[in-house]
């Protein structure tokens, strides 16, 4: 500015001096020196006039500049205020007004804000005419390429148009384009400086707006997704702290559910009120997902409620983002579990009843059939003893009694023979069997039974066992009986923390064998010889026929069923069946 003023003053001085000089050179009829003096005075006057003129012009311009500056400052703060108040969905009226007001202070007749969309395109966010337009309406659109160049991060300054990149947090958010209404007029440094400042404010405002809009959209989306998910859902951060939960979780918080207790900001696992074992299992599962050792996992456990036992299933899924975290979903699966247990129990009962009803009938028949001759033998013997105690025993009658005793004893023997015949070979349905498959079927059948009792069943089945020949149903009953015994013995043994049953198959000496070992208390050594006897049982409700019949079945297959106590504890039963094709 000062430079402009000096230039003006110098110009005026030169004009004044030049004029004076011209006057002095010109011929003067009334004395030369007087004229020179007059000319000098004129020049001085002219000079003073010029100085005054320049001062006035400068003062006026300063006033205008000050007003513009004030307008700019006020406008900028107004823009900021409007932006700050802006919340989606955007109400741009106030903002547009403030931008319109600030436009002249950056030398713009028209102001345009374009936002960069996700696809990289520019969309016009607002396009405003200054009020009042200082240079009339804009005459022409200078072409989109200034905006595109600006979008590359450069300030584009052309006569009539100024395009500034809107950039914040290293993100290119859009372009601010200013038009001064005259394609030939360039931009003053001051206007450019202000425009840059305005662009900076707009960029940050836009960033803020986009973030807020994004947050809102993400939050809406997340809420909608969470609400639609069945089950109680909590989103955890990498420390296991609850970030957000769905409405189902909130409802569950007020129930007696021991899992869904933590609210936002709380560590989920710390609020869980489960027995130590289940709680530890749950905590480990959550940790394994949070620390990234597993992408997802599921845990199920039961818990007690005044209304009875309930079952929960928890799924933990790692959140696929840099900060980590997990989605924790809790499902009350009591109804499903009860149904499953019911089905399994029913199925198992059927299998058991099938075996037991046959055995029960057999047992009742055996009891009666043996009881009659036993009664006769006892009474005959006691009668004979009485008779022998008399002074003159009737020996003929005693002989009759003895004959009867012998006869009744034979009768009892026949009963035994008849029982044997009940399990006749020709009643079997002989086929060639895959022993492993047969065992796997039974393990599956008893899987839930074992799980309900907390017994783990581990099977090591040797592939390519030699096929065996036998009756599938009968052999399955043997395996079922042995496995069920093993499970029950393991459950009954309270000194074992982790009841387990192991099943092994293998081939040895042209025979296939099957071993089942339990974690029960084992068989008292003195009873090892008796456990295969009919009616020998250690179970309060047992018939004592299971092992007896099992052994009969195995023997009818030319196999052996033996029992032993394992050196590491528990009982071990083994079944050996000759391989198909082996001469027996």
């Amino acid at each position: 500015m000062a430079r402009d003023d000096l230039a003006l003053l110098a110009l005026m001085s030169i004009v004044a001096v030049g004029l004076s000089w011209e006057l002095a050179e010109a011929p003067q009829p009334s004395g030369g020196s007087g004229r020179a003096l007059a000319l000098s005075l004129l020049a001085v006057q002219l000079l003073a006039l010029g100085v005054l003129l320049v001062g006035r012009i400068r003062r006026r311009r300063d006033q205008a500049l000050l007003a513009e500056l004030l307008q700019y400052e006020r406008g900028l703060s107004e823009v900021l205020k409007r932006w700050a108040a802006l919340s989606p969905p955007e109400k741009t009226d106030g903002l547009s007004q403030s931008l319109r007001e600030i436009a002249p202070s950056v030398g713009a007749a028209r102001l345009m804000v374009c936002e960069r969309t996700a696809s990289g395109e520019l969309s016009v966010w607002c396009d405003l005419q200054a009020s009042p337009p200082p240079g009339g309406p804009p005459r022409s659109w200078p072409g989109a390429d200034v905006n595109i160049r600006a979008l590359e991060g450069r300030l584009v300054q052309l006569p009539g148009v100024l395009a500034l990149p809107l950039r914040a947090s290293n993100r290119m958010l859009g372009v601010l384009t200013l038009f001064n209404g005259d394609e030939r007029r360039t931009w003053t440094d001051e206007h450019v400086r202000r425009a840059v400042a305005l662009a900076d404010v707009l960029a940050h405002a836009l960033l803020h707006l986009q973030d807020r809009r994004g947050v809102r959209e993400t939050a809406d989306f997340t809420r909608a997704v969470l609400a639609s998910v069945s089950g109680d859902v909590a989103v955890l951060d990498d420390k296991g702290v609850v970030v957000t939960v769905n409405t189902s979780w909130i409802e569950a918080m007020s129930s007696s559910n021991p899992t869904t207790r933590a609210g936002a900001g709380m560590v989920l696992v710390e609020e869980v009120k489960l027995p130590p074992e289940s709680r530890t299992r749950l905590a480990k599962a959550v940790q394994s997902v949070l620390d990234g050792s597993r992408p997802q996992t599921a845990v199920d456990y039961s818990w007690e409620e005044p209304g009875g036992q309930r079952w929960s299933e928890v799924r933990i899924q790692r959140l696929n983002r840099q900060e980590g975290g997990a989605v924790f979903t809790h499902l009350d699966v009591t109804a499903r579990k009860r149904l499953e247990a019911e089905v399994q129990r029913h199925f198992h009962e059927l299998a058991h009843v099938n075996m037991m009803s046959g055995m029960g009938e057999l047992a009742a028949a055996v009891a009666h059939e043996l009881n009659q001759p036993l009664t006769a033998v006892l009474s005959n013997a006691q009668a004979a003893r009485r008779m022998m105690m008399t002074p003159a025993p009737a020996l003929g009658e005693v002989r009759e009694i003895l004959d009867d005793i012998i006869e009744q004893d034979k009768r009892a023997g026949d009963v035994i023979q008849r029982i044997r015949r009940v399990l006749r070979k020709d009643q079997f349905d002989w086929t060639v069997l895959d022993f492993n498959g047969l065992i796997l079927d039974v393990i599956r059948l008893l899987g839930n039974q074992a799980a309900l009792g907390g017994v783990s069943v581990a099977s090591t089945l040797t592939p390519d066992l030699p096929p065996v020949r036998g009756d599938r149903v009968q052999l399955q009953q043997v395996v079922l009986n042995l496995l069920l015994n093993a499970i029950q013995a393991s459950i009954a043994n309270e000194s074992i923390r982790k009841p387990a049953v192991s099943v092994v198959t293998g081939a040895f000496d042209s025979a296939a064998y099957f071993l089942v070992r339990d974690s029960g208390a084992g068989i008292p050594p003195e009873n090892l010889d008796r456990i295969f006897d009919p009616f020998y049982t250690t179970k309060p409700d047992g018939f004592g026929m299971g092992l007896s019949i099992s052994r009969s079945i195995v023997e009818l297959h030319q196999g052996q069923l033996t029992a032993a106590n394992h050196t590491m504890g528990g009982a071990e039963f083994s079944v050996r069946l000759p391989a198909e094709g082996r001469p027996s």
Partner: protein
Amino acid sequence: MTASAGLVYIVDDDEAVGRAMGRVLVASGFEVRVFTSAAAFLRRTGEDRPACVVLDQRMPKVSGLELQRAINADSALAVVFMTGHADVPTSVEAMKAGAVDFLTKPVDEEQLLGAVTRALERSAAAHAAGRERAEFLERLASLTPRERQVGALMVQGLLNKQIAWELGTAEKTVKVHRARVMDKLAVGSVAELARLAERTHTLRFEPSDPRPGGPREMPG
């Protein structure tokens, strides 16, 4: 064998069992009859003396419990039950129906003898009572209707005068009736008569009997 320790019937469809148990009882001095079916037992010729029956609960056609009910209907027989397996409901029903004991096969001799002895005691008591009743009823039948009326009023403890008033006859006539009643029924006192009447549920005054006498006070 001089005096029998008592009569025992054994009913078991298994002949060998019946015979063997019979031998134990015979060796202990009992008189024994063995039957292999309920029908055969019910067809037996009656012996009017105390007796007990040892019944197998599990028999074809007629069950032990059914037979027990048939026996109870008109007999002083005491019942001892035997079973292959003593299940509670059957035992309870048998004991309720009056069985003396419930034995489980095979039956030990001591248990058998104890049960039979107790059963015979009960049968003897029942038999004695039955005989007394039968004799009394027989005598009662020899009374004339008038003597029966007098006897019924005697049992109520009425004096001759009162009886005469009730029946509308002379006291003298009542005296004669009273003597005949005592004589025909072979009782020595009114008290004995009352006891017998109560035990046999007989000699109750029939209100429908004709009362030609004067007005009688009505109760209430």
